C-alpha cells in the first residue's frame, strides 16, 4: 500500500510535469526513391527488379496516457515501383498505399538514447500490374493487421550542432490478407462473384515482413531537414502464392514541430518534451 501510494504520488508529480508536453506534434514529409524487387507468382514465377519512388508522411505526438509516455504515431506511405523481368522483355507496375497507426511507450531512460515500443495497426492497399498477362494481368493488394513497432532515438552533437538519429522497425504479427486462390481468375471472383476463401488469416508464419526506417534530423535555419533510408521487406505466402515487395529507398524531407499553444512556433531538437 505504501508503494502504491508512493507510486501514486510519483505518477501525479510526473503528470503535473508532463501537462505541457502532451501538446507537441512532430510532422514530417519525406520523398525519395531507390531499388525495388517484386515477386507475385500469381502473375509470374520470376522476380522483377527496377526503380521505385516513395512518399512518407508521419505525424507523432504525445498522449495524455501514463504521464505522456504513450505516443501516437500516424504514418502514410505511398510507393510505386516500375520493374522488369530478368530478361527485360516484360514489365510490371506496383503501387501500394500504407497507413499505420502505432502507440509507442517511451521507456524512462536517462541519457541520450530513448527507446519506444508498442503495438501497431497497419492497413495496406494497392495493385501489381503485369502488362503482358491475359486473364491474370493484375493482383490486388489488400492486407493489414496488428503488429509491433519499436523505435530508438539518439541525440548527439557534432560540435554544437544538434542531431537526432532515429531507427524504427515495424513488424506485422497478426492480420488478414486478400488473395485469390492459387489459380482463381478475377473473372470468377468478381464477374461471377465466387470469391470465397480469398481473405486469409496472416501471421509471422505466412507474412514475415519487416519495415525499417533510419532517419537523421538536422536543424537548418528555423527548419529541420530529415534524411532517411527505408528498408521495406513485405512478403507473404498465402493460398500457395508467393509475393514479395522488397524496396530500399533513400528519402529526403522536412520536419515540422507544431505546438498546440499559441505563441510557441519553434521547437528544439534537444527539448525534453519531444515525443522521441
Amino acid at each position, binding site marked *: 500500500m505504501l508503494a502504491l501510494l508512493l507510486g501514486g504520488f510519483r505518477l501525479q508529480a510526473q503528470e503535473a510535469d508532463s501537462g505541457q508536453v502532451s501538446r507537441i506534434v512532430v510532422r514530417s514529409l519525406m520523398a525519395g526513391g531507390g531499388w525495388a524487387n517484386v*515477386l507475385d*507468382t500469381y502473375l*509470374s*514465377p*520470376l*522476380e522483377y527488379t527496377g526503380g521505385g519512388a516513395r512518399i512518407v508522411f508521419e505525424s507523432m505526438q504525445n498522449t495524455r496516457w501514463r504521464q505522456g509516455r504513450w505516443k501516437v504515431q500516424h504514418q502514410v506511405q505511398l510507393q510505386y515501383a516500375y520493374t522488369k*523481368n*530478368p*530478361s*527485360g*522483355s*516484360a514489365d510490371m507496375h506496383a503501387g501500394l498505399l500504407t497507413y499505420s497507426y502505432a502507440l509507442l511507450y517511451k*521507456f524512462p*531512460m536517462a541519457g541520450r*538514447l530513448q*527507446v519506444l*515500443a508498442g503495438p501497431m495497426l497497419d492497413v495496406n492497399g494497392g495493385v501489381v500490374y*503485369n502488362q*503482358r*498477362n*491475359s*486473364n*491474370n*494481368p493484375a493482383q490486388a493488394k489488400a492486407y493489414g493487421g496488428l503488429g509491433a513497432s*519499436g523505435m*530508438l532515438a539518439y541525440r548527439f552533437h557534432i560540435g554544437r550542432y544538434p542531431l537526432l538519429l532515429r*531507427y524504427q*522497425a515495424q*513488424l506485422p504479427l497478426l492480420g488478414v490478407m486478400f488473395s485469390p*486462390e*492459387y*489459380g*482463381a*481468375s478475377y*473473372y*470468377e471472383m468478381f*464477374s*461471377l462473384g*465466387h470469391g470465397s*476463401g480469398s481473405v486469409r488469416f496472416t501471421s*509471422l508464419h505466412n507474412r*514475415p*515482413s*519487416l519495415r*525499417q526506417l533510419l532517419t537523421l534530423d538536422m536543424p537548418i535555419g528555423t527548419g529541420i531537414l530529415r534524411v532517411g533510408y527505408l528498408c521495406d*521487406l513485405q*512478403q*507473404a*505466402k498465402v*493460398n*500457395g502464392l*508467393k*509475393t*514479395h515487395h522488397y524496396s530500399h529507398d533513400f528519402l529526403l524531407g522536412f520536419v515540422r514541430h507544431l505546438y498546440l499553444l499559441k505563441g510557441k512556433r519553434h521547437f528544439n531538437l534537444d527539448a525534453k518534451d519531444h515525443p522521441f
Partner: protein
Amino acid sequence: MRRFLFFGWLAVVAGALSVASCIRADISGNTPRDNFEALWQIIDQQYCFLTYKRQAYGLDWDEVHTRYADRITGNMTSQALFEVLSDLANELRDGHVNLSSSMGTSQYREWFDSYPRNFSDTIRSHYLKKDYVLSSAMMYQVLENNIGYIYVGSFASGLGDGNLTQALNRLAVCDGLIVDVRSNGGGDLTTAEKLAARFTNEKVLVGYICHKTGPGHDDFSEPAPMYVEPAVGMRWQKPVVVLTNRRSYSATNYFVNAMKQFDRVTVVGDTTGGGSGLPFTSELPNGWSIRFSACPMFDAQMNQLEFGIEPDVKVDMTAADMAQGKDTMIERACEILKN
C-alpha cells in the same frame, strides 16, 4: 541499459527472422535446361487439364518430361530450344497453350486444321450483300427469305447494349434469326455472355467453372455455377440457329454452350473447336511468355467442353454448294427456321 540491450536484441532477431524466412522465386537460372524445367513445372503445377487429358488420350506429363529432357542440350540455339519447347507445349493439344518469343508464337492447330474449314467469307458476302450493317463486332442483314442473319467474328471487342438493341429491333420483322459464329476464335466471356443474354427470358444455368487450389494435378475448387441472366431491354423471341465450325473456339465455345441451353435455339454446323480453359499467362526465365488453360469450364451437366461441342444438326459445306456460291450451313439454317 538492459532495456536498450533487450530492444536491440529484439530488432536483430526480427531482422534475422525476416531475412531467414525470405520468400523468393522458385525458378532461377537461364540455361536451356532451366527454361525447359520452368516450362514443364508451370504446366505441371498450373495447367488445368492434365488429369482429364490423361483420361482422354493418355497424356502422361512425367513421361513427357523424360522424353523431352533428352532433347535439351547446354549449347543448343534459342531457335532450337523454341522448337523443342513448342513441341512440348503442343503435347497438351490445346489451342490456348502458346509459347511466345521474338521468334514467333507456337500454336497447336490440329483442333481446326484437321477438319473442314466450313466457312468462306467470300460466300458469306453473297448473303450479306453490300448493304449489310456493320455495328460493333456484328455484321447483319435481312436475307431474301426474311431470315435475319448476324455474323459475329470475334468476342475480343465489346458489343454495345445499344448496338445489340438496334440490331434486334431492325431484324424483329424476320421469321427467324441466324447467329453465325463460325471462325470466331473467342475473346471476352463477358461479351459472349452479353450476346447470349438476348436470347433467354429467364435465368438459366449454362455450366460450371472451377480453378486450381494448389499445384497438384487434381487440386480444384468446388465447381461454381455459371448463369446467363436475361438482358434488360430487347430480347429475341423467335427461333434461332447458331452456326458453328471447328474454329468456333474459346469464348465462342462458351457462347455456343450457353445458347444450347435455351429454348428455341438450334446449333447447326460442325463441332466447335473447344477451348474451355480460361487461359492465364506466365513466363520462362529467358523472358518467353507461356499462355495456358488455368480454369476449366463445364456444361450444365458437368461434361468437359475442352474438345468441343457437338451441334444439334451436323452440316458440312459441300463442294457443290460452294461451287454455286451457296453456303450449305446458311441454307440449312434457313430451312430449319422456315419450318
